[in-house]
């Protein structure tokens, strides 16, 4: 049986592969550490931690001087005022329902019926008003005739 002759260069190839130069373990480890993404990631982690610490410190200082409560009440007030403006009412207590449950149509109705003019001007309300109607006899001090 005919045998295939081995390539004359096979031995040389084997020799080159087996005795391939290898880096020193210490050099390899140092270079791996240097280019590892973890080493770059650590720097990023440090930056994030520093930013978080600074943010916490700033918040702490603001809270110590009551800034958080002041800011919260300001935001709350601004929110309510904005709603009043949107709804178009001048007195929130009277129009509580209208403020919270106003649809487009009911809001239009509320603004047409209830406005500041009605609250301020009520004919015949006071005793000095000429149109005042006395509900009781002794309600108003009558001027001596």
């Amino acid at each position, binding site marked *: 049986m005919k045998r295939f002759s081995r390539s*004359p*260069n096979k*031995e*040389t*190839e084997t*020799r*080159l*592969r*087996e*005795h*391939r*130069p*290898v*880096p*020193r373990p210490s*050099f*390899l480890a140092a*270079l*791996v550490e*240097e*280019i*590892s*993404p973890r080493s770059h990631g650590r720097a990023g982690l440090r930056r994030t931690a520093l930013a978080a610490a600074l943010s916490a410190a700033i918040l702490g200082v603001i809270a110590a001087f009551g800034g958080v409560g002041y800011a919260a009440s300001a935001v709350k007030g601004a929110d309510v005022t904005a709603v009043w403006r949107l709804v178009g009412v001048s007195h929130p207590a009277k129009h509580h329902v209208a403020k919270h449950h106003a649809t487009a149509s009911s809001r239009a109705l509320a603004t047409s019926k209830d406005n500041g003019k009605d609250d301020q001007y009520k004919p015949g309300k006071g005793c000095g008003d000429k149109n005042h109607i006395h509900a009781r006899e002794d309600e108003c001090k009558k001027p001596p005739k």
Partner: protein
Amino acid sequence: MLRFDPLADSERLIKRVYAYVAYRIGDGADAEDVTSETFERAVRYKSSYDRSKGEPISWLLGIARRCIEDSWKHRLATTSEVPDVAAAGALEDETENRLLVAAALARLNERDRELIALRYGADLTARQIGNLLGLRANAVEVALHRTLGRLREAFEAGPLGEAGLPPPEARSVRI
């Protein structure tokens, strides 16, 4: 979206690049310097790596080739370093064999050393070598076959050959 990291398998890549560099310029401190420089540049220009143009090892070897050229510019002489084989008898077998391989490689010209380094140092295929050098895979295989023949002759001739020195063309011929 996560970017592909060409240096993810760093240990394996370092070994391949180091073997390539050591086959080109000789094992030791110079090879370590060039390998370090190669990876330093790779980290610096990592964002420029284009996966569609080739594998990370091909990209790294392109950088390594430029680093080798730069290191040659800084050298006063371009002579190939022939190891001190007189002391080889006292060394371990593995080290002795490596020295013999290095001595045989030192007898080759730069083009042959480049081919050997890419094929047996960096472990590239003929196609990958062809892409890197701008040759066809078939041409690379033929060139490698001839180079191995010359290397075999260098092994048979002994560490320093009959004249005791590498051939003159091995000292200064560049690709």
